[in-house]
């Protein structure tokens, strides 16, 4: 797995939207005043008749999107995740999810890698909320190329969907040929000693951690769970059974996000030690993205160290790990 460059995931969202707009005449985009930073400006330039500026009113934009969806359109609304996933939470719950309205939300500037804007704009909680909404699809792409493919895929599926993307450039390591299927986790690296399960920018950090572990003779499996909901129960269960311990890594609170989903599934199907890499019950703060990723413990080093802890817990049996190879798989 090689580094191909560096590009923000939000560019993938913007390019994916233009691609969708060309393919489907009923794709509509709603702007929330920050169209340049969440890249809906690209769609606006290309399809001005299908772009509507709603202003700084995320609750209204979300429900207008529901009205458009109930009229046969495919509306996308994008803003910063702090405002288009949580300020409008009730609208997402009732008007979008309960209605099963075909609304698509793009939540930008996610995680602490927003940098200098500080804690108010660094959303770290929305994955937890969105994955509890019935009918919702929740996507956290790992790089530009995956964000582009995910945007097209969410536009072409029927039902409410949310994509999370970031502001700052992140490593690009997938290609147009890398498979992408909603709800199907990607096996990035084979391995048998420990499973590193990540999404977003932490997938690349997991790859770096796996390469370092390999130098110690440890074989780490890296899994990219780009779709947090619906969750790929089978891939994660298999990893738990075959590796016997897990590290989850995400640019999100450690509670109730990807790590929570992995814990729910493995607790039922294959209880193994899990170490959680993520933001540990705190708000973000100002700083450069790289500084913040170090401060909040979101680099390959924490994943590496956590892998060693997880393996030790497994080998000492302190978690009560037992052979679970013959237990049937239950969906979460």
């Amino acid at each position, binding site marked *: 797995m090689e580094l191909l460059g560096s590009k923000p995931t939000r560019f993938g969202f913007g390019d994916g939207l233009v691609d969708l707009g060309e393919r489907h005449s*009923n794709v509509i985009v709603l702007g929330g005043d920050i169209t340049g930073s969440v890249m809906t400006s690209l769609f606006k330039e290309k399809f001005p008749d299908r772009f509507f500026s709603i202003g700084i009113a995320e609750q209204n934009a979300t429900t207008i999107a529901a*009205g458009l969806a*109930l*009229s*046969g*359109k495919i*509306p996308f609304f994008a803003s910063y995740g702090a405002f288009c996933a949580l300020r409008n939470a*009730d609208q997402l719950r*009732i008007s979008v999810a309960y209605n099963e309205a075909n609304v698509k939300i793009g939540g930008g500037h996610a995680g602490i890698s927003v940098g200098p804007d500080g804690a108010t704009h660094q959303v770290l909680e929305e994955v937890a909320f969105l994955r509890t909404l019935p009918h919702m699809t929740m996507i956290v792409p790992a790089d530009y190329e995956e964000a582009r493919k995910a945007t097209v895929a969410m536009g072409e599926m029927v039902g409410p969907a949310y994509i999370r993307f970031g502001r700052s450039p992140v490593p690009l390591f997938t290609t147009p040929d890398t498979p992408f299927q909603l709800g199907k986790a990607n096996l990035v690296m084979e391995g048998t000693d420990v499973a590193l399960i990540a999404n977003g920018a932490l997938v690349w950090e997991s790859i770096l951690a796996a390469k370092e572990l390999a130098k110690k003779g440890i074989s780490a499996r890296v899994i990219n769970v780009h779709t947090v909901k619906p969750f790929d129960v089978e891939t994660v269960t298999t990893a738990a059974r075959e590796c016997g311990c897990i590290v989850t890594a995400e640019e999100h609170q450690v509670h109730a996000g990807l790590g929570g989903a992995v814990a729910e599934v493995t607790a039922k199907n294959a209880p193994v030690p899990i170490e959680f890499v993520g933001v540990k019950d705190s708000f973000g703060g100002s700083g450069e993205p790289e500084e913040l990723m170090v401060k909040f413990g979101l680099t390959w080093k924490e994943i590496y160290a956590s892998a060693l802890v997880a393996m030790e817990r497994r080998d000492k049996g302190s978690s009560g790990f037992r052979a679970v190879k013959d237990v049937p798989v239950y969906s979460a």
Partner: protein
Amino acid sequence: MTDDMKRSLEFNETTFTNERRAPEGFAPIANEIRRDIVRMLVRAGSGHSGGPLGSADIFTMLYFGGNMRYNPADMQAPRDRFVLSAGHMAPVMYAALANAGCYPKKEQETLRKYNTRLQGHPGRDMHLPGIETSSGSLGQGISIAVGMAMSDKLVDKNDHRVFSLTGDGELQEGSVWEAAMSASHFKLDNFCWLIDNNDCQIDGRVPDVMDVYPIDKKCESFGFDTIVVNGHDYADLQRGFDRFLENQRSGSGKPTAIICQTFMGHGVSFMNDKFEWHGKPPSKDQATAALEELAQHP
């Protein structure tokens, strides 16, 4: 392709007419809607009496006055649409839809019961004909209606109308004004905002809980052509609808707000103008008395 998308493609083939569905006049229809509301609520044992009874005349003019064009035998076909933003007033919409022939009247008995299509607050997932959206969390329906009106006027470019009804207490929800701002910004003269102004909400009189007045000046300043009508006078209500139809016909670029002044619980004297009747059903004895009173004024 979803059903919504298919309908969108068919949207320009207009299959409806302005049909007034009240050969005997409006009063008997409104009376029957009120009696249905009482019968539904006493059977359910919970639910909202005051708002539905008070707005029965508005719903009569909406569904039977020829102002909203629809085919009761096929509520999926191209049509004008109504969004009940004040979801707790569901019983009056259910009664109007049943009396219009959109679903069997007998089914009204299932209000709020297990597995019913007549959920306590409207649920789109139950597929009751005529329910355009789920609602119940106040302030959302009007935004959905604005989105529908945008779809009709700005995207599909047809002449369909979209109506939405909010309560007056609901005006305390800030997002209502976000929706109002966008309706005039997008010049949605195909959008008609009905405000049930009964001055009551659960905790008391509206100005005591949080003052929303002057409603007419607020609507005007948000760009609405605003008209205040007596919500129990059919001719006056129609004057409001006519103003809306004229705005749309002339392409005025202005959405219309019809402020319907009503009394909560109207038609049942012991409920009339009493905010205590916002959120409760009549007892059996109260229902009997209410039905007797309504039977005297068909």
